[in-house]
C-alpha cells in the first residue's frame, strides 16, 4: 500500500514541481526573507573598501555593459554600487558599449538619484552609447571630450558642473565595469594597466572564477560576482534590494532542487529494500 503510494509520488505530475519552483522563486521578490548570508567575500569587501575610502567629490566612471539576458545578476550590482557612490558624495559618470544596456541604465537613474537628491548634470552624467569599445577607451586617454563631447541629453559635456576638472584618465579616481561580456578584460588591459587607473569589476557567477588571476596581481581592485556578490554589497551599504531578495530566491530554489532529488532517492531506496 505504502509502496503503491510512493510509486505514485515517484511519477508525480511534474507541474507540481513547476508550481513549487515558481512559488519559491517569486515569494522573496514580494517579501524578502533575509536568509542568513554567511560571510562577505574578500573581493566584494575590497571593492567596497576602495569606493568607501575615496574622498568626496572624486569622479567615478561606471561602464555598465550588460543586456537584459544578464540583467538579473548584474543590475542589482550596478544599483548597489551607484547608491554607494551617491552616498559617499562621489561624482558619477556612466558610459556603455552595449546598445542593449541603455534602457537598463535609464532604469537605474530614473529612481536612484532622487533618493539622494542628486541632480543630472551636476552630480552625475550619462554619456551616449558608443560602438567599438577598445578604440574609445584608448582615445579617452588623451581627451575625454574628443569622444564624449555631449551627454545623452545632448548638453555640452565640457560645461556640465559634474565634469569640472575632468580631462582624461588622470582625473578619474576609479573605473567600475559591470558586464557580462569581456568588457572588463578590456578595461583592465587597455586602461587599468596602461594608465594606472584602479578598476573594480562586477560579473556573472559563471564568469567569476576566470578573474582570479587579475585579482591576485592587483590589476582588479575588487570583484563582485553574481547575485551573491550583489547581495553582499547591499548588506555592506545597508540597503537591501534586488540582490538580497534574489539570493533569497536562489537559496530557496537550490534547496528545493536538493530536497527533490533526495526525496526521489529515498523513495527509490524504500521501494527497493522494503
Amino acid at each position, binding site marked *: 500500500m505504502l509502496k503503491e503510494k510512493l510509486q505514485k509520488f515517484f511519477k508525480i505530475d511534474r507541474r507540481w514541481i513547476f508550481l513549487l519552483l515558481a512559488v519559491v*522563486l517569486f515569494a522573496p521578490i514580494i517579501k524578502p526573507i533575509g536568509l542568513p548570508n554567511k560571510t562577505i567575500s574578500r573581493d566584494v569587501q575590497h571593492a567596497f573598501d576602495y569606493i568607501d575610502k575615496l574622498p568626496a567629490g572624486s569622479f567615478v566612471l561606471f561602464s555598465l555593459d550588460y543586456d537584459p539576458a544578464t540583467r538579473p545578476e548584474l543590475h542589482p550590482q550596478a544599483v548597489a554600487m551607484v547608491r554607494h557612490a551617491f552616498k559617499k558624495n562621489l561624482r558619477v559618470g556612466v558610459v556603455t558599449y552595449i546598445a542593449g544596456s541603455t534602457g537598463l541604465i535609464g532604469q537605474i537613474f530614473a529612481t536612484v538619484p532622487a533618493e539622494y537628491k542628486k541632480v543630472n548634470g551636476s552630480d552625475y552624467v550619462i554619456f551616449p552609447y558608443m560602438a567599438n569599445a577598445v578604440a574609445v577607451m584608448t582615445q579617452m586617454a588623451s581627451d575625454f571630450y574628443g569622444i564624449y563631447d555631449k551627454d545623452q541629453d545632448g548638453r555640452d559635456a565640457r560645461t556640465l558642473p559634474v565634469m569640472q576638472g575632468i580631462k582624461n584618465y588622470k582625473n578619474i579616481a576609479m573605473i567600475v565595469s559591470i558586464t557580462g561580456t569581456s568588457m572588463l578584460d578590456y578595461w583592465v588591459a587597455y586602461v587599468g594597466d596602461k594608465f594606472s587607473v584602479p578598476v573594480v569589476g562586477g560579473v556573472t557567477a*559563471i564568469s567569476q572564477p576566470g578573474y582570479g588571476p587579475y585579482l591576485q596581481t592587483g590589476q582588479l581592485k575588487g570583484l563582485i560576482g553574481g547575485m551573491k556578490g550583489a547581495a553582499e554589497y547591499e548588506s555592506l551599504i545597508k540597503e537591501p534590494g534586488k540582490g538580497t531578495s534574489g539570493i533569497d530566491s536562489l537559496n530557496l530554489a*537550490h534547496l528545493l*532542487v536538493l530536497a527533490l532529488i533526495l526525496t526521489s532517492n529515498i523513495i527509490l531506496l524504500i521501494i527497493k529494500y522494503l
Partner: protein
Amino acid sequence: MSETWMIAGAWIAAGLTVFLFSFLYKDNPFFKIAEHLYLGAGMGWWFQVYVYNILGPKVWTPLVNHDWMVLIPAILGLSLVTQFVPKISWVSRYGFTFLMGYGSGLAIPAGLSTDFISQIGGTIRPLSMMASMTPWAIFNSLLVAFGVICVLFYFFFSVEHKGHFKKVSNIGVYFLMIYFGAAFGNTVMARFSLLYGRFDDLYTFSASKYLYATQIILAGMIIYFAIHGLMNRGKKQAEAVN
C-alpha cells in the same frame, strides 16, 4: 518614449511572458499565438540585423562606391536561392562549396592548436613545477592526466572493450559522469537567475503604474483554464451518458 507606449509595452511583454509560461501547464491557444508571433519576430529581428549590418554596409555601400569585388560573394550567395528551382538547383553548390571549404579550412588548424596541442600541454604543464608542488597538487595533476587517458580509451572504436580495456574505459566513464554531474549542477544557478529575472519583470509590470498588467493577464489565463477544464469535463460526461 511616451507613457502610453510604456504601458502598452508592459502589457505586451507581460502578456507574452505569461503566454509562453502557460505551456508549462499545458498547450493552449495563447501559447500557440505567442509561439507563432515569436517565429515571425525572431526571423524579423534577424532580417533587420542582416540587412542593416551585412547587406547594407558590406554589399550595398561597396557597390555604390564601385567596389566590384563584393559581387563574387553576392553571386555565390544568390546561387543558394536556386534551391527553389529544382532544375537548376545544382547552381547552389557553388555557394555551398565555398562555405564548406572556408569552414573546414578554418576548423583544422584551430582544432589542432586549441583542442589538441594545447590540451596535451595543459595536462603536462602543471607537473613542470614539481619542485614547488605539494604532494596533493602532484596527485591532482596526475589524476587529470590519468583521467584524460581513460576517457580517451572509452572513445577508442577499433578495439572491443573487453578485459583490461573494459576496466580502463569504465574508469573513463566515471570521469565523464563527474563532468556531467558537475556541469549540470554548475548551470542550475544561472538558469534560476534567468527565471528570477523574468519574475522580477512580471512583478514590475504588476504595479499600478502599468495598470496591473501582470495580475489581470494572469487572472485571465486562470479563468480560461478553469472554463476550458469545466467544459471538457462537461463534454466527457456528456460522452459517458451517451
